[in-house]
């Protein structure tokens, strides 16, 4: 474990320098313990693969006091009660314009891509970059595909894509360079709800293939007249 100051109001706790579930478990255990104690100097905690950032109020505690506090918090390696979230996805067609490219690039059929992509139980390592954007672990390398050379200016919310060995979905409409293979009708990020995101760090995600009709049925329920 390494500890680093980030300016005067944040401490980085570095639990490792690789992407693996064990290290990420420790990051979440530390985050959960801190949030449960909720000391008055704590502003927020932000997890990632192997590093936890602790934002604190330097007028309420020194960094030494923050570290001293951590010494006295028992951080147990509890099985985080990550929930299993099913994300229905309509693959291909208008929802997944790049699926044939992903198939051709990897010498597979479109059905193979759907099968391979929807089989694993993906772990949510953390959320970052853009609201609701989940960093998932566990994609099969047989469908790994490089990013678009020229990113699209607009990728619709819910689009599921592949970038290199990563997969995930765009929770809000944004520009993006991932290969889009499908789209979920779920509103995966809703700022009027707390928590705003359908998944939290530590959860597990299963992509479930659906038809176009099912897509629109769920879409209407989720988005209403939006």
């Amino acid at each position, binding site marked *: 474990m390494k500890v680093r100051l*980030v300016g005067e*109001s944040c401490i980085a706790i570095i639990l490792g320098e690789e992407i693996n579930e064990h290290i990420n478990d420790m990051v979440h255990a530390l985050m959960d313990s801190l949030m449960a104690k909720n000391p008055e100097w704590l502003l927020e905690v932000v997890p990632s693969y192997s*590093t936890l950032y602790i934002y604190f109020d330097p007028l309420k505690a020194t960094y030494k006091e923050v570290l001293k506090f951590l010494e006295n918090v028992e951080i147990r390696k509890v099985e985080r009660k990550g929930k299993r979230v099913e994300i229905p996805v309509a693959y291909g067609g208008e929802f997944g314009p790049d699926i044939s490219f992903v198939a051709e690039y990897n010498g597979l059929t479109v059905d193979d891509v759907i099968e391979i992509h929807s089989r694993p139980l993906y772990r949510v390592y953390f959320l970052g970059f*853009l609201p609701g954007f989940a960093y998932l672990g566990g994609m099969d390398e047989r469908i790994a595909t490089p990013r678009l050379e020229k990113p699209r200016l607009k990728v619709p919310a819910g689009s599921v894509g592949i970038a290199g060995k990563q997969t995930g979905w765009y929770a809000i409409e944004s520009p993006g360079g991932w290969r889009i293979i499908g789209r979920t009708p779920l509103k995966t990020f809703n*700022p009027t709800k707390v928590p705003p995101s359908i998944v939290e760090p530590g959860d597990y995600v299963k992509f479930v293939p659906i038809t176009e009709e099912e897509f629109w049925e769920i879409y209407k329920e989720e988005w209403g007249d939006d």
Partner: protein
Amino acid sequence: MIEIVSVITPATIQDSGRFGYQRFGVPVSGFMDYISARIANYLVGNPGGFPVIEFTVGGLILKFHGSTVFAVTGEAEVNLNDISLSPWESYWAKRGDVLRVRLREGMYGYIAFAGGIECSKVLDSCSTYVRANFGKTLKQGDMLKTGYAILSGKAGRSVPEELVPRLWGNKTVRVILGPNVENFSPDGIRTFVSSEYEVTPNSDRMGYRLEGPVIEHSERGADIITEPIARGSIQVPANGKPIVMMADAQTTGGYAKIATVIKVDLPKVAQTRPGEKLKFRPTSYKKAVEELKKVETMMNALEKFLNGKLNLFRIKVMGEKYLAFAGREDL
């Protein structure tokens, strides 16, 4: 009500920020220059973190459809019905008055109204975050509802000349090295702390991209396993050109960070225009906290002074002028 008559360069509504949602990928946002923004609020009798209009260089024009107390901060030109007013001072506006503001120097100015601006909060904050469509980018014809001036606002309050922040132009900014110093060569760090870096036009509320001598990475390279990233941190991608993370910064990132700007100097970065230069000088954690305490003490005294709870005296000691704040209980 206040009508936005014309927006010359982008303006948004901002408050102190959106805290507690970075773990869902939601940036904090909020004031780019919290010192000027808080003072604008204090001038009209609001708590420091209330929503205000944050405008940029070209400014905007607005029309009052009811009377209220307002104040403009920043190095701003302020005109009410074509009469020139001072920034850092609160005024009374009545129905039909037209306010025009723009900046002489710096990048951001603030307009506060007594009682604040009503907004529908997204995740506990009024702050505009354009990429996710949170909040409001102001456009012509928008109507803003303000609070009741009669409850809190008083015209004719002004910031003492000596306490007007000087955040404009070229400057030196203090940083705490890290958190990813091992990704930089000793030469790279030397280059960073001894050179000048120019703010490029490619800068916005998310980050300020700088141009200057290339910062050399160590054999570890520019890329790290994606980790959180804090406001004020300076990331250096493989091209060796630094980017300072600002209010709308992404919550995580994969480039190594050479240093982090201390909190009290971040408004100086925010107020630097493209073409102007920054120098980065390392400081210690201890010094950064001392400076923060100093600024907070001054801001608290200023708030009380502007609300009539403290008096201000100028005292000369051996030729040097000092400011002294005193409340009734102190005398």
